[in-house]
């Protein structure tokens, strides 16, 4: 028995060293790629942040209310969003909220921009999807702190590594939901379109995408909610925003600060959810 134990524990499989070796190799040879990526993402973050922070808060609030009405056609939702923002302004978290919104929006752009095309491609290749699924599981279940380490190594401290960590965690959601939506397009609808002469591209845009739209919009909603859940973790790698006061409150055991900033995050989450809830007009 002892010898058996020794056999198992005698030679440790070098998982940790392996990962380290990969990351070292990437920093050594793919540094330029990461720098370019970082620069691109930093530019996007700066642009979004500028749009959100340059105008007077009331102008931003009005714009969000108008957007809410345009999307949902309900005065109540529009008014609720206005009240939510006024509450945030009242609590003195306006700037942090805009920084977190920037992170969420940037994550949305990247995740939907990558997730929807990848989801479509996987839906059309069921066998590839079977291979990719474990990778998606890994991205979602690997503790977030673990991939914060290489994120810092590659991208330093700030909003960009926060964004990267967020994207890795969130990306599987839009991929999965898009794949589900496209793959569950009723075969009868596909067949009807093909019988009337649809090309593969027409089939995608005129049948599969409209049919998958509810799932894709759920994917967007999930992307936003999951991104928001990452703001505290992003704060650990130096991303500014609502996570910063939460982390500070935790470190100084400051109940008041913790609840204030926590509640603001909840308010932001509710507002974004209501803003982008998808209802099929029937």
């Amino acid at each position, binding site marked *: 028995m002892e010898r058996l134990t020794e056999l198992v524990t005698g030679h440790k499989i070098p998982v940790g060293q392996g990962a380290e070796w990969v990351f070292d190799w990437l920093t050594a040879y793919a540094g330029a790629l990461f720098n370019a990526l970082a620069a691109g993402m930093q530019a996007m973050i700066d642009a979004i942040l500028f749009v959100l922070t340059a105008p007077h808060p009331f102008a931003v609030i009005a714009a969000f209310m108008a957007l809410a009405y345009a999307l949902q056609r309900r005065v109540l939702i529009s008014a609720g969003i206005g009240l939510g923002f006024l509450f945030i302004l009242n609590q003195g978290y306006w700037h942090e909220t805009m920084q977190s919104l920037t992170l969420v929006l940037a994550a949305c752009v990247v995740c939907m921009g990558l997730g929807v095309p990848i989801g479509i491609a996987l839906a059309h290749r069921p066998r590839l999807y079977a291979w990719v699924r474990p990778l998606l599981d890994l991205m979602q279940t690997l503790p977030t702190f673990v991939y914060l380490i290489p994120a810092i190594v590659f991208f330093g401290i700030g909003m960009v590594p926060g964004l990267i960590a967020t994207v890795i965690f969130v990306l599987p959601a839009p991929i999965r939901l898009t794949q589900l939506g496209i793959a569950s397009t009723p075969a009868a609808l596909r*067949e009807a*379109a*093909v*019988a*009337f002469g*649809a*090309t593969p591209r027409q089939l995608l845009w005129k049948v599969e995408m*409209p049919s998958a739209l509810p799932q894709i919009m759920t994917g967007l909603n999930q992307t936003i909610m999951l991104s928001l859940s990452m703001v505290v973790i992003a704060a650990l790698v130096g991303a500014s925003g609502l996570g910063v006061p939460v982390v500070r409150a935790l470190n100084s055991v400051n109940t008041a600060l913790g609840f204030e900033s926590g509640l603001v995050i909840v308010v932001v989450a509710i507002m974004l959810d209501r803003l982008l809830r998808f209802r099929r007009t029937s």
Partner: protein
Amino acid sequence: MNAIEFDNCSVIFGGRPDRSLDLADEGLDRAAIEEATGQVMGVHDATLEVAEGEIVVLMGLSGSGKSTLLRAVNGLNPVARGDVRVRMGDQMISVPAASRDMLHRLRLNHVSMVFQQFGLLPWRSVADNVGLGMELAGIAKAQRRSRVAAQLATVGLEGWADRQVQELSGGMQQRVGLARAFATEAPILLMDEPFSALDPLIRTRLQDELMELQRQTRRSILFVSHDLDEAFKLGNRIALMEGGRIVQTGTARQIIADPVSDYVADFVAHMNPLDVLTAGDLSARGAGGRAGAGPQAEEAPLSADTPLRQVLAALAEREALPVQGGGVVRRADVLRRLTGR
């Protein structure tokens, strides 16, 4: 001229079909072939023509291969062996050998289809569904609108153009399906049990409407049905299928008069004879001047193609009636025939 020709057409699902085809040639049935090769024999050795302007009904129990054969016409199902040819203008095009581009044009302009479950896009309005074929062909929106409006009028759906499809009843949805198929102006129409999902009253009405549309536009229609009465009502000719093979082809009356097998005879036994059988079918042969016919001698004779429904009405008054060209229909004979030989 033929619109569609099936030439010893076989459809096998799942992988290379060589061995399954050999087994099918030996006469094995679908279950035996699946056990031996794991492949599903959809249709084997089907030969059939649809003439221009004709309605041919593929009939059989579910799983007999009707829909499978139908789907070979526009390439939705691959043909393992044999050939399917479809008329495109002056020439017959082989569907299995057609290039992708040719198949695309065939589907856009020459063959359209109506589905059992309608196959309408539920997020689109009625008009946008009817215009689907034209939209896929890249026809401009303005031109589409007028053709869609005209087509909706022919199926009695004026004023419904901007409704969502889901708001419509089943019968109206299938009218949209018909309008969509007619809108491409394809001369060949494939109909896959289009009326089976509808309740009987609506079904009858749509059958009548289809016959009216057919009178106006004369398309070549391949129609799949498991309903014998529907087949006899609509079909100029009927092809009866069993287990993936065509077992008999002919007009309704030929099939009734001379069923080739017990399967066909069984099938035909359950039909409603009122609109199919005629005075000619029921008349006692060569009995023009027999005793007992006397009192009816001065009656105007029935024409031989008077449907049974009218013969019965006439026989309500009398025991027997003469038929043009000789022969007599007797009430007792008709009753005996109807209650099962």
